[in-house]
């Protein structure tokens, strides 16, 4: 029900002109950016979120382990959720609405950089959720921790400047949701004071993905030892 969040922000700006100095167009762009990268994650990788139910409880993970192929790669690629691509379309239309109203002069290179940043943001989502679902190897909670993290994702759609210092630090350094939309959006929106964070986005993506793969491997190992 990603649409509810979109309808919220659209209705908010019927009567509210700006959000702590951020214009409607800028907010829409950041929001759209988060929807595109989250939509990509949902479309191509949400099979990951089935780990608890379909793979561990129903026992399909044993089948995965029998094959001589990386278990993470198998689970992630086993199914594509095309129906989730509507989120990408909603995000793209929010971004293009914002761009058409802001009169920014973007060249082909800018679009290419933005595309790269979207991929990095999507990778961050992948990393965060991989770490979380890996916990089900040790402790199966039927996905309720994942639902908390999906709720926290709501924070990624807004400028981090509206939050207090504690929340900002958490979103930047601990659960890097600030890098899934806000910081990378600053490239197109041309806020130069954030440019260091823009370029940190791919690095954050790689660091967290490596960490996630490490946690997954430990988890899969823990699963094997209980199985034998």
């Amino acid at each position: 029900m990603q649409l509810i969040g979109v309808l919220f922000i659209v209705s908010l700006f019927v009567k509210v002109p700006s959000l702590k100095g951020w214009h409607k167009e800028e907010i829409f762009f950041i929001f759209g950016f988060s929807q595109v990268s989250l939509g990509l994650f949902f479309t191509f990788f949400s099979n990951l979120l089935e780990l608890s139910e379909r793979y561990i409880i129903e026992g399909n993970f044993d089948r995965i382990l029998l094959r001589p192929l990386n278990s993470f790669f198998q689970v992630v690629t086993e199914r594509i959720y095309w129906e989730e691509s509507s989120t990408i379309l909603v995000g793209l239309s929010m971004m293009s609405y914002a761009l058409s109203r802001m009169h920014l002069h973007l060249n082909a290179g800018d679009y290419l950089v933005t595309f790269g940043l979207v991929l990095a943001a999507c990778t961050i989502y992948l990393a965060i959720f991989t770490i979380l679902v890996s916990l089900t190897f040790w402790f199966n909670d039927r996905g309720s921790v994942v639902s908390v993290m999906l709720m926290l994702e709501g924070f990624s759609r807004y400028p981090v400047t509206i939050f207090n210092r504690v929340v900002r630090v958490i979103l930047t350094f601990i659960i890097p949701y600030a890098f899934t939309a806000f910081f990378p959006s600053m490239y197109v929106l041309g806020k130069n004071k954030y440019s260091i964070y823009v370029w940190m986005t791919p690095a954050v993506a790689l660091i967290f993905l490596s960490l996630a793969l490490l946690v997954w491997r430990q988890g899969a190992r823990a699963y094997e030892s209980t199985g034998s």
Partner: protein
Amino acid sequence: MNRLAKYWAFMRMGYLTYLAYRFQVLMSFVSYLLIIALNYFLWKAVFAKHQVIAGFTMEQMMTYVVIGWSARTFFANRIDRMIGDAVRDGSIAMDLLKPTNFQLYHYFRAFGRAVFMFLFMTLPIIIVASMIFPVSLPSGKLGPYLFPLSVILSFFLHAGISYLTGLVAFFTRNNEGVLRFKQLLVEVFSGVMIPITFFPDWVQKVLFWLPFKYIAYAPLRIYLGMEPLSKVHQGVLLQIMWIVIIYLTGQIVWHYAIKRLEIQGG
């Protein structure tokens, strides 16, 4: 007495089902606090430059958010999903064997869940959230008395809407699409997401003729003491009117739905 005991048992069943999911309830509690926190920061940013927006002050808006989201845990129900699942997996046959009013069976079972939620979600959320965020007590002459009644009415109104949505499964076998559409309507137009005074005027005019705003928006206005006395009475009466209309519609649709089901079975 016998009749009452029957519905008491359904309520107990609904209550006990949720005792089994303590960790999930705790996580859901955390999720609600996160939504409230996000709303707090957003509204703080919105009110940074304005005193009053769409008729609300910052203080009223925070109370609206906290009370609204915590009330949502009480009036939410899974009736539509339960009926849909029962039709799909055939367990509906067992439900039909029960010598009882199918609609009331679902209302009471869901009410048992609501009692559970009230004790383990609504109250804890209100208590914890009011320690962190600025929340006011109910105001106005009638707020403290009529608000609880109004929220209980919200429960039955929402239960009726969900029941009707659930019955669609009898006609289409899969009610997933209708279910999602109903969820969207309730989330957006009940007023939990945002007070309906934020919508464009034409949307507000349309909502006047629909039951959704009586689920959350109307009770919350009563809590905040934003309505004059005459309007408060009118709001509660309209809630009751919608409950009756939707209940009767539910009975009529049931009459046709049950015939459809027999055809499928035979």
